[in-house]
């Protein structure tokens, strides 16, 4: 095999591998059950009532629960749609916060990991965050989780939405540098 042929073969293999990595980003999984069982303690903290935060809310989430959509651009854009449809923006606005805490900064009262945010949505949190247990299907909760994380630059740039339909103060999530949200002081208070 000549050097040129070897070179072309290498390039071809490389290009083929590149297309493989793109599959996960674009894949549309419509019927997949999300692996959420066990992601929460089973406790509903709140429909608007303060509850004992030592139970459930602050327990470390099981490490084995993975966000199935961390690398899926389609799911993140679905999450963006649902974020508005289910009126998350009614309290958290488009990331800047208002009635509820902002979601585009690096302050996370209950943790910034996907499992934490899943728990926030499903269990509810004291002082206003209602529980959506049984109201939003698991798959959609994970889509919303992915979008919420994209607002603070916690998703890779190729997955985060490139633009929003709403007025935005800063850069779109896809161009928010991770350093900006994960400063040297650490990710978030636990």
């Amino acid at each position, binding site marked *: 095999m000549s050097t040129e042929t070897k070179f072309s073969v290498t390039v071809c293999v490389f290009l083929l591998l590149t297309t493989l990595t793109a599959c996960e980003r674009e894949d549309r999984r*419509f*019927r997949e059950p999300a692996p959420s069982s066990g992601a929460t303690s089973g406790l509903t903290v709140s429909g608007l009532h303060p509850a004992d935060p030592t139970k459930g809310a602050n327990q470390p989430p099981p490490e084995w629960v993975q966000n199935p959509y961390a690398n899926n651009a389609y799911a993140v854009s679905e999450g963006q749609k649902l974020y508005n449809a*289910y009126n998350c923006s009614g309290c958290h606005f488009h990331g800047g916060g208002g009635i509820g805490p902002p979601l585009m900064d690096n302050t996370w009262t209950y943790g910034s990991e996907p499992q934490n945010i899943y728990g926030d949505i499903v269990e509810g949190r004291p002082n206003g965050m209602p529980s959506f247990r049984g109201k*939003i299907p698991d*798959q*959609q909760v994970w889509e919303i989780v992915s979008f919420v994380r994209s607002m603070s630059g916690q998703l890779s740039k190729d997955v985060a939405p490139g633009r929003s339909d709403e007025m935005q103060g800063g850069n779109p999530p896809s161009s928010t540098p991770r350093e900006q949200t994960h400063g040297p002081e650490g990710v978030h208070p636990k």
Partner: protein
Amino acid sequence: MTCFGLLLISASPIQSALHAAGPQAARIERLWWLMFWVAVAVFVLVIAVLSGALGRSRQKSTNTPPPLLDTSAADRMATRVIGAAVAITVAILFVLLVDSVVAGKNETQSLVSKNPVSIQVVGYQWWWEITYPNTDASQTLVTANEIHIPVGVPVVINTAARDVIHSFWVPNLNGKRDLIPGYSTAFWIQADKPGVYRGQCAEFCGIQHAKMAFYLVAESNEDFQKWVQQQLQSAPEPDTDQKRRGREVFLSSQCVMCHTIRGTIAGSRLGPDLTHIASRTSLGAGTLPNNIGNLAAWIADPQGIKPGCRMPPNELPAGDQQALLAYLESLQ
């Protein structure tokens, strides 16, 4: 081409531009036939000339190539033939153009009525919200994927879209009209023959564009008024324990996040209004005939029937599912 024409004629008449049921569609149909027969004439002419050329005997081959044109008489002849062909082509295209412009103008101008039935059609991915607006809010009717109109009366359709561009098309009644987000248009339809006509989204709008249809029922004015009065009512109270349980299931599960049932606390506008779901012809925007079996399948696994649609699968315990179905079937 003739075969293609015959295929269109034999197509199902509830969705066919060649079975006009109103004045505008009749104009479009006439234009279609004019174009068809002109095309047939041109086709026959071309084939005749081609056959003549094929049938001519070939010149005996000699070593010297024949001159391009034998005589100046032949040269003049060729010029005339080409000139005539160009003139005929231009004339035909001109006639067709003028006729289509006239048809288009008549279509938008001829139906003006002082008290038309007015309908707001809003396109969503992938269903239609149908509103009969009224200055009295309690008389404003909201339904989905099914339009009723009285026969012989001009109806004005106001269009809007909430996500992407859709297109409203009932071939039996009129041409297409795009539904563009942030831009409202109005146009007329009129049905002269009672019947059920099928409409279809005619602008590619995403993964389930093909399953974005609706039914349009043209009926006598009395039937239409009866339908309006019936649709204006709130959902009937459940009269059995099972139906009451079904309502409870609806209100306590994820259904309530997207759907409205007037007369209950369910009031979300993300999905179709279900107040009178059992009275409709189809489920999933013309995807399935509306019956209890299809409804069960649709609730359990909409992603299997219409992959990518906005409705998530609903895994309910069997008892709850039966109760929910009984309740929804009672929403006449």
